[in-house]
């Protein structure tokens, strides 16, 4: 990758939404909005609520469906992406739907020009009573196994933080053949409207994102890196500046995904790419040498150099 900064799923459309602001190939890569086999309308408004340093969303995984993506979006993206890696984010209402969609992605991979699959396990299993696939160890394994069996592309599993311990899920993903993990997805949250005395969101609860969740993502990135030092990690959660991105790299992520911050500042990804380059130049180092550096307790910590 040209740089370690990717645009996160659900905050970058299908790769076609930021073309007014910067060229696609200025990114290390991007992850599409979650795609299902069939299109989904999503939830009624209100779908978002502001929080301190963040926001709740309950979009409901609205998406155009795989066929429409291949026909309408993929040609533009393939033409514009240059060196940017294209990662397709997939989901389904049950483990077998994930596998079926993975088979379609594998079949259409050259048409789309995609480099990897990211598996969004943060959906309820509609067929088995709505339990969240990403929080149920058995369904989680079946989902990853099913996707792995259908594709030879790299598979990343996007992990939910809504569990007591994320590390066993990362271990399960690795055991089932995933090539890496993306962490973390949004945290459950709710806000209540004081005048209506009802939850703000139409679905009552939603997913919390934004700078408020940065320390949660850093924590789990560090824990997973410590437990599984060989497993590639894409760090996600609350990254709004190059400093936030660098924390994830130091905690052990090979790359980062920027999401909610780009809603507010469409140039956030570009500012992060530039900030990381300046940091590397100032410290005469490389991204590769920074990855996981916070774990090297045997080495002396650097003496801060204040260069403004």
């Amino acid at each position, binding site marked *: 990758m040209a740089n370690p900064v990717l645009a996160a799923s659900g905050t970058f459309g299908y790769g076609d939404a930021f073309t007014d602001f910067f060229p696609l190939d200025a990114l290390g890569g991007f992850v599409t909005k979650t795609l299902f086999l069939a299109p989904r309308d999503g939830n009624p408004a209100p779908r978002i609520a502001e929080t301190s340093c963040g926001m709740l969303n309950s979009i409901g995984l609205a998406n155009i469906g795989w066929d429409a993506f291949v026909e309408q979006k993929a040609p533009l993206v393939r033409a514009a992406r240059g060196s940017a890696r294209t990662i397709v984010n997939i989901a389904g209402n049950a483990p077998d739907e994930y596998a079926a969609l993975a088979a379609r992605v594998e079949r259409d991979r050259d048409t789309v020009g995609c480099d990897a699959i990211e598996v969004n396990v943060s959906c309820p299993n509609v067929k088995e009573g709505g339990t969240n696939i990403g929080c149920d160890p058995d369904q989680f394994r079946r989902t990853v196994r099913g996707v792995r069996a259908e594709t030879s592309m790299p598979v990343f599993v996007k992990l939910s933080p809504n569990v007591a311990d994320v590390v066993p899920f990362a271990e399960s993903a690795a055991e089932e053949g995933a090539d890496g993990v993306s962490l973390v997805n949004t945290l459950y949250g709710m806000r209540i409207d004081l005048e209506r005395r009802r939850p703000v969101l139409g679905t009552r609860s939603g997913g919390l994102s934004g700078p408020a969740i940065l320390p949660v993502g850093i924590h789990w990135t560090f824990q997973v890196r410590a437990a599984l030092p060989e497993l590639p990690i894409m760090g996600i959660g609350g990254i709004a500046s190059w400093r936030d991105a660098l924390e994830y790299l130091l905690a052990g992520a090979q790359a980062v995904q920027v999401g909610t911050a780009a809603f*507010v500042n469409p140039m956030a990804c570009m500012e992060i790419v530039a900030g990381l380059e300046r940091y590397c130049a100032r410290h005469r180092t490389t991204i590769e040498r920074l990855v996981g550096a916070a774990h090297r307790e045997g080495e002396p910590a650097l003496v801060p150099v204040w260069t403004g």
Partner: protein
Amino acid sequence: MPASWTLPLAGVREVAAETFWLRFPRPAGAACDPGQFFMISPALPSGGLFLGRPFSIGDVRDGEWRFLLRVLGRGTASLRGLPERTPLRLVGPLGRPFRPTDRGLHRMVAGGIGLAPFFYLARRLRQERPGDRIELWYGERTATAHAELDADEAALFDRVERCTDDGTRGDRGDVVGSAAKSLGEAEAAWYACGPHPMLRALAARLEAGGVTGAQFSLEERMACGFGVCQACVVPSRRRPPAYRLLCLDGPVMDPLAVAW
């Protein structure tokens, strides 16, 4: 084309209770059309506000972009309190503007802070169609909420009809009933902006009166303003799709396309 601008606040001017103009220097060469909007947020990280807020362009004059705001929540309250020269991020112009029409009478119906987009719309109509007649029907709950127009703004309209729910200024009653009395008059291009129940009521009156081609400026919560966050859904009358995104398909929409 939209861009992300960091602009210093040129000033805040109150024109009614809790209602004020937010002014910015217009960047050289930057253009926008009536009905388009900008996402406005603090340029520097702020403890209070996180998301930007969508505001229709209110007026473009004296080298400035102006937005008419009313304090309705934390976002608007914090914007009113900002000192001059505070840098703010403006992402825009975004969305679909009001479209040209061949009718020579323009009737704008404003409920409360829904007044905001009509200054710039009237200004552009004055420039581009100098012979046309422009009417403003403007309702508020009470007299102290009515925005005062300066001489330049007042000259944008050939007729201004004010009303209040409590009768303290202009006709007593809501602006929909007031404006709808003119339905039998000459054929007009109708424009409206205001609270959802007002727009729903006006849409029903216009449809019953056989009016087509009306243009309503709607509002919905947004995080981005350019089609990514998918928050600003408006139920669509003709399905599929079940929803339209207000930021891309609006904010100016044909009321006949909306499932009110």
